[in-house]
């Protein structure tokens, strides 16, 4: 192998190694302590006589845990809330309200983990959230309050669960009775909730369960669709309130529910756009209400005004951590605090116990359990029971671990003293330690494995250097090369600016505009067009301007007007949208028909003897059309049927009969038909071209038509994976591809263009570097049941559709595949003056034809293309890694930089290796047939 190819191969092999090494250091796998916690013997028994007195009496023996997805604090507590009954309970003192701070990432699965284990889930749970079936992410083996409740009273605990099937995946086999709902269609506001509610009256009469868990999804769906102020929001809150009323009334009236604790909680909130995943105040502030008539005992002196005014943004009443739920339930229901808990027993509930020694015991058990985790984290520090010099201030000069050790020694000191002191002092000392431990252990800053971070970055840098040395050194001063370097350099710098990570689309839009204008300037050197505003490069710029207006993305301008949300596509004018979508499907079907017609005719458009290109005749074209029309039509019907279910507001202008018919179709089967059809045509085309290439003389060269056919087939797949409102963009992409083939681009310029447009369209399709922008709706197309590989691939294709498209276009432009070969005999051209212009034009065409065909057979051209793309991706990865390493103590590390790293992983492994190298390499190789 040539040293250059060797360098390039090595660079590409190093990229995944670097990414994984860095990830291992950046998202450390938190070892959790296995097994269930039990009540252990406590220290200072001689003094408190805990063994004889036993554990504090449990105050409740049943639990109704009602989760309302995305129940932001103001939906319950605010002035405009529809939850009047809940508010009246707060006023009566039968309900104790909190704002439960949810840490980022604010998506359901990590939040459920936090609520049930009391731990702070690692960021890797985000990935596992999308690969839910992964067994390592289930909580079956972990200590949770569900496991504790099941184990209570000698293993006689019974649980029932209705609602979001995330719980069923996390707790397989835990529930006596269950009915899972999935949030497959976000447009479903009612069915998902009715499927939960219908079980409630019956279960309230059953006496066999210890805990009933409900998880309502409708409110979250409404948020995603119409935002927190949408017209369905208040009715939904009223509906949720009526369920609260039913359950609370039953607790008041039914004897067997007498000692039932009723908890209403949101798993996370939502931002102004109704989405979640990040760490805006709205997203991290769900409501948390504990309800029971017994609570009146402790609410006498608490704040009972309702509706209330928020203190900060969405901060109503007292703010607690979401992880505090687990130890609080443990105390109230009388089971040991789950082992991995970092939560703190909520102080208000202490007063349910009259005896101070019970209160102290509850907190001490909480503290002993948390101390074990702290001890495991700081094995070199002393967390024993020997009394040391007691310091009253655990000052600033100490490290985080030393501060905790100091505070623990304060606990040991005050617990062990025989002096008569007010119990209040002991309780404050325990809280002092617990809260400090919670804060320190939640900020994982101490957990980075810096050596792995450095190692990963170094490997990525090695890949970058190798990619650099794999490149052909061309002229020392090429403007395109400068532009490429500038792009990489600026991108690297911007990765350190949190706002540019959030608003990355602006960088790519800005760079691409400049690039197209440069192409215009460059083209003006050769020929001046009298109508320069119709110059291909200017039209490209114009189309680019439409593309960037299509979807507003990022954080700062997310709500700004864009084409997708304009009235152009909504309501009755959705006909416009569907005409464009239809045109797009029509275009792709016709292109496929041409390919099939060519294969039916058995012609590889070789030049006839007279130099004329033979065209397929009408009959063959008709056959081609007949062969692919069912595929195109099925794909279109699938998109329509999917959209009727997923985004009905986009189909309102369509005839009702048709919609009714489309809505009744079976989506999984339709999607499979589309994918199967694509596979079938692919197989046919490959077979045909393989035979054609074998039939050709060795001296003759193919036209690369197979690459074009496969590209069109792949485009149909990508369109199937794209949301309806984004499909018209493919018409723009098609036009841009066409215009680019007009411009006389150098190979480097082609690589750069495909790179720029790939990044641009990633964001223009509505993605951003926020987890909340990941679109899940198309990742289950044709999949029934659960298949990690299929769902992962579909998820990637639906979110990276634009970059994949442009990566493949880059390959086609580079080899000018499928370009009509005219085989102009330049020697025979008329040399007289008056045709000079025409002659020059033809000579140029002939040159370009030859150039493209030669490049197609030249592995060096392909290597250079991949080399440039590898150089960019490894450089970009180095920049992101450096930013994450340097800024690891930054305030936004978990909200901006970590998500960016997850995206960088997908770009590096999924897009670069999977698409640019593998898929593009296949296309390139098949194009040489």
């Amino acid at each position, binding site marked *: 192998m040539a040293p250059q190819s060797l360098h390039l191969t090595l660079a590409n092999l190093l990229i995944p190694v670097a990414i994984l090494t860095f990830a291992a250091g950046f998202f450390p796998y938190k070892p959790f302590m296995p097994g269930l916690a039990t009540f252990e013997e406590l220290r200072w028994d001689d003094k408190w006589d805990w063994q004889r007195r036993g554990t504090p009496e449990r105050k409740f023996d049943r639990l109704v845990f009602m989760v309302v997805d995305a129940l932001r604090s103001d939906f319950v507590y605010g002035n405009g809330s529809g939850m009047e009954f809940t508010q009246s309970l707060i006023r009566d003192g039968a309900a104790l309200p909190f704002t439960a701070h949810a840490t980022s990432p604010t998506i359901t699965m990590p939040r459920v983990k936090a609520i049930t284990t009391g731990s702070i889930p690692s960021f890797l749970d985000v990935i596992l959230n999308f690969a839910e079936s992964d067994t390592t992410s289930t909580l079956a083996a972990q200590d949770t309050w569900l496991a504790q409740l099941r184990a209570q009273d000698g293993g006689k605990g019974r649980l029932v669960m209705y609602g979001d099937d995330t719980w069923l995946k996390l707790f397989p086999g835990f529930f006596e009775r269950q009915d899972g709902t999935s949030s497959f269609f976000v447009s479903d506001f009612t069915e998902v909730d009715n499927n939960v509610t219908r079980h409630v009256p019956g279960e309230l009469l059953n006496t066999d369960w210890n805990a009933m868990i409900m998880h309502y999804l409708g409110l979250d769906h409404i948020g995603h669709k119409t935002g927190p102020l949408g017209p369905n929001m208040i009715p939904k809150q009223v509906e949720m309130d009526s369920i609260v009323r039913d359950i609370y009334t039953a607790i008041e009236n039914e004897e067997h529910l007498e000692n039932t604790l009723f908890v209403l909680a949101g798993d996370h909130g939502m931002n102004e756009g109704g989405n979640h995943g990040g760490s805006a105040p709205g997203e991290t502030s769900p409501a948390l209400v504990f309800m029971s008539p017994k609570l009146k005992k402790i609410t006498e002196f608490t704040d009972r005004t309702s509706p209330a005014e928020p203190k900060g943004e969405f901060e109503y009443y007292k703010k607690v951590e979401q992880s505090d739920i687990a130890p609080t339930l443990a105390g109230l229901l009388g089971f040991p605090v789950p082992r991995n808990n970092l939560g703190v027993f909520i102080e208000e509930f202490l007063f349910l116990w009259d005896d101070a020694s019970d209160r102290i015991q509850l907190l001490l058990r909480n503290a002993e359990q948390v101390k074990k985790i702290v001890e495991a984290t700081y094995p070199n520090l002393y967390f024993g029971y020997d009394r040391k010099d007691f310091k009253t201030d655990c000052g600033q000069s100490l490290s985080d671990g030393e501060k905790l050790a100091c505070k623990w020694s304060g606990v040991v000191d005050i617990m062990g003293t025989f002096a008569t002191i007010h119990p209040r002092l002991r309780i404050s000392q325990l809280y002092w330690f617990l809260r400090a431990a919670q804060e320190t252990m939640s900020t994982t800053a101490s957990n980075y494995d810096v050596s792995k971070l450095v190692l990963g970055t170094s490997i990525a840098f090695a890949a970058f250097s190798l990619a650099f040395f794999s490149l052909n050194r061309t002229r020392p001063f090429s403007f395109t090369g400068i532009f490429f370097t500038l792009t990489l350099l600026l991108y690297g710098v911007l990765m350190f600016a949190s706002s540019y990570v959030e608003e990355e689309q602006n960088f790519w839009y800005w760079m691409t505009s400049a690039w197209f204008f440069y192409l215009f300037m460059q083209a003006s050197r050769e020929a001046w067009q*009298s109508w320069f505003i119709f110059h291909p490069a200017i039209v490209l710029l114009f189309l680019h301007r439409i593309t960037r207006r299509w979807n507003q993305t990022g954080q700062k301008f997310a709500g700004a007007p864009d084409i997708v949300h304009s009235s152009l596509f909504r309501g009755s004018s959705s006909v416009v949208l569907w005409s464009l979508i239809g045109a797009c499907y029509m275009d792709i079907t016709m292109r496929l028909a041409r390919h099939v017609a060519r294969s039916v005719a058995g012609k590889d458009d070789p030049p006839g003897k007279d130099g004329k290109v033979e065209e397929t005749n009408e009959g063959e074209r008709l056959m081609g059309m007949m062969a692919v029309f069912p595929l195109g039509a099925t794909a279109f019907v699938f998109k329509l049927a999917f959209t009727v279910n997923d985004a009905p507001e986009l189909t309102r202008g369509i005839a009702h009969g048709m919609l009714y018919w489309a809505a009744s179709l079976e989506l999984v089967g339709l999607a499979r038909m589309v994918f199967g059809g694509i596979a079938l045509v692919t197989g046919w085309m490959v077979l045909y071209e393989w035979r054609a290439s074998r039939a050709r003389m060795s001296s003759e060269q193919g036209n690369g038509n197979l690459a074009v056919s496969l590209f069109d087939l792949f485009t149909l797949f990508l369109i199937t994976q794209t949301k309806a409102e984004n499909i018209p963009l493919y018409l723009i992409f098609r036009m841009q591809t066409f215009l680019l083939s007009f411009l006389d681009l150098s190979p480097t310029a082609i690589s750069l263009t495909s790179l720029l447009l790939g990044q641009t369209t990633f964001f223009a399709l509505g993605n951003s570097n926020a987890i909340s922008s990941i679109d899940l709706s198309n990742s289950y197309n044709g999949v029934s049941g659960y298949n990690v590989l299929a769902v992962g691939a579909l998820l990637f294709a639906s979110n990276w559709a634009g970059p994949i498209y442009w990566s493949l276009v880059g390959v086609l432009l580079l080899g000018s595949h499928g370009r009509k070969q005219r085989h102009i005999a330049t020697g025979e051209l008329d040399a007289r003056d008056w045709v000079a212009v025409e002659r020059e034009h033809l000579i140029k065409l002939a040159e370009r034809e030859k150039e493209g065909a030669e490049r197609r057979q030249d592995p060096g051209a392909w290597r250079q293309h991949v080399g440039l793309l590898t150089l960019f991706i490894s450089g970009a990865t180095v920049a992101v890694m450096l930013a994450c390493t340097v800024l690891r103590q930054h305030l936004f590390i978990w909200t901006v930089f970590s998500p960016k790293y997850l995206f960088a992983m997908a770009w590096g492994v999924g897009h670069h290796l999977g698409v640019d190298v593998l898929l593009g390499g296949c296309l390139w190789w098949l194009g040489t047939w």
Partner: protein
Amino acid sequence: MATVVQEPARPRVPSAPIDILNTDLAKLYTHIHPVLLLSVYAFKFNSIVENPVTALSETLVAVGILQVVFSAICLPPTGGSATPLGDKRKPGEKKKGAPSPVASAVNGTVIPAFLALVLAIIAGIPILGVLLVLFGAPISTHWEHTALCAAHISFLTAIPLTYVHGVDGSTWREIVSLELPIDEVYGCLIGTMLGAWLGAVPIPLDWDREWQKWPITIVTGAYIGFAVGKSVGGTLLKGKTVLFG
């Protein structure tokens, strides 16, 4: 599609860089001018941030006057009179009562300068406005802002350029394709355009400052780019051409 007018393969006459007029006043004022422009802009900056439309319009008038004055004082006018007016007179004409200095100044410099101003308004503003929108300027709102931004860029670049090069199509092709040798005037164009382009960088940052509003950073970038381009184009890079590859 547009018709492609092929340039006949004529021998390229390399355009010469423009020199500042060889008068003391021109040599002095060409250094004062950018300082003056930037001072005016800096002086108005706070009110531009507060009230962009009004303040940018006011500044525009001042900038227009300054640019016209600069062109008239420092630059050689376009047209057949590539040389300063004084040399154009034929010996025979001289006796027929030479035109008064005022009249010759009006004919030779004031009128071209005025025409340059008119062209900058009627052609420069629409073209640059469209270009700004293509580069991402808001399209459904902020019409006045974008127009004023285009006007400022147009005044900074088009007035001196039209004054020296006129409306000759092939020269403008050379200007667009960066083939003209760099001089003070052409440096202004490149500097202003690059400055305006780079001026977009601070907009997305989360500093929440008033001056991040459209189009203040763009105009500011244009002014700074103008000053830099003018001084670099007139000294370091004079006579060089931008290389393409």
